[in-house]
Every structure is written in C-alpha cells, then in structure tokens.
C-alpha cells in the first residue's frame, strides 16, 4: 500500500464519523415534493401537446382556405409587343 493510499484511508476514516439522525418525515416530505414536481411536469407536457395540436389544426385550416400552392391569377394583362 502506497503512502498516498494510506493518507486517503486516514481521511476516509475521518469522514466516517458520527452519522446524523434522519428525521422520520424526510422521506415523506421528499415524496410529496417529488409528486408535486411530477404533476407540474405532466401539466407542462399536456399544455405543450395542446398548443402543438392547436397549431397544426390552425395551419391546416389556413392552408385549405388560402391554398398557397396554387398560382395566383394574373391581375394585369401581359404587355402587347410587336404591333
């Protein structure tokens, strides 16, 4: 065992000192907070989906009404040349 390992071992033993007592309600508090977090994530995801679907519907309706892929009818007659 190198001296470096031995030094690390000494500190490791120091770190393994007295453990604090775990409050009995710590897990419950964490679980409650985690549950709220999960609910919030789920709500954000649901709102995201609703917005995405609404955007798709709006785009489809607009595309069907305006039909931007058809060429617009020409407003002006082409100039007559060669007379």
């Amino acid at each position, binding site marked *: 065992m190198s001296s*470096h390992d031995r*030094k*690390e071992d*000494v*500190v*490791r033993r*120091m*770190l*393994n*000192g*007295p*453990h*604090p*007592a*775990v*409050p009995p309600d*710590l*897990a*419950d*508090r*964490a*679980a409650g*907070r*985690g*549950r709220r*977090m*999960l609910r919030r*994530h789920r709500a954000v995801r649901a709102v995201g989906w609703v917005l995405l679907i609404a955007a798709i519907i709006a785009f489809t309706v607009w595309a069907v009404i305006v039909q931007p892929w058809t060429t617009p009818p020409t407003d002006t007659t082409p100039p007559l040349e060669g007379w």
Partner: protein
Amino acid sequence: MRERRAARESGRAREFAAFAAGAGGRLLHAATLLTGESPGDIPGGPLGENSAAERLLTAALARTYARWDRLRGEDPYDHTRRELATLFAHRAWRYRRPRGGLLGQLTPQERLVLVLRLHEGVAEEQAAAALGLPVERVRAICTRSVALMRSRAPETRRARPEPRRAAGAAS
C-alpha cells in the same frame, strides 16, 4: 386508466419509501459533510430543525421520486447522489461560510470532490464527469484536500485564522 395510474403512484410511493428508509442515513451523512455542518457531538445527534443538509437531501430525493418511473434500471442511490452533487455545485456559494463541521475549512468544491471520491467511492472519471472537470484537476483537488485534512488531524485541531476564500468554487 385512472385506476392504473393510482396503482402505479402507490407502487412508486412504496418503493420510494423503502429506498429512502434504507439510503437516507448514508445520504444525509454525505449531505452533512458537503454543507460543512456539524452533526453534533453525540453520534446520531439531531442536526437541528430543517438544516441545510436536510434541505439539500430533500431536494435531491424529490428529483429522484419524480424520475422514479424513468430510471431505466439505474440505481436510485446513484441517481440521488448525482442529483445531490449537482444541486450542491449549483448552490456552492451558499456553503462557503464555515459551519463548524468536519470539512468546514475546505472550499465547497474540495468538499464535493472529497465526499464523492473518498466517502462515496466514486471513480475519478465519474466524479470528473459529474463536476465537469478534467480528471487531472479532480485528482489534484483530491490530493490537496487530503493533505489539508491531514494537517488538521484530531490531535492538532485548531481554528484557521481566517476562512479560505472559495476561489473557483464548484461550478
């Protein structure tokens, strides 16, 4: 659908409670070392109402709870430890002030490296990845912290004249 979700929630709550009961003590000890608080002279003594270590651990455990169904086989203990390290690194500036704990004289970054490497036995590469540092830097910080800790071994314990500045605190 609703019943299935309720059943999953209660199952998750049960599994989480069992995990927290088993791992809580070790994780709280690690959190106490990180925040630099003193667990008191009595082994297993109370930390005091709502200590920083408790708040840190509650936040980390809550994140583990929220991810419980999507851990995909990852050990919840490892996940909680990673969350703990990330949360601590983000809030490192809050823990610069020495609080009389075992690692009170170290900077937050030195404490984090020491706890991850020596107390938790995380490999150098993993610790470096978790902290976003090069492996050599983690090794250097660990060596320096070990030397600092040994220089104030129990028999030569005395207060440092002024707290070390947290230059380059855990980022």
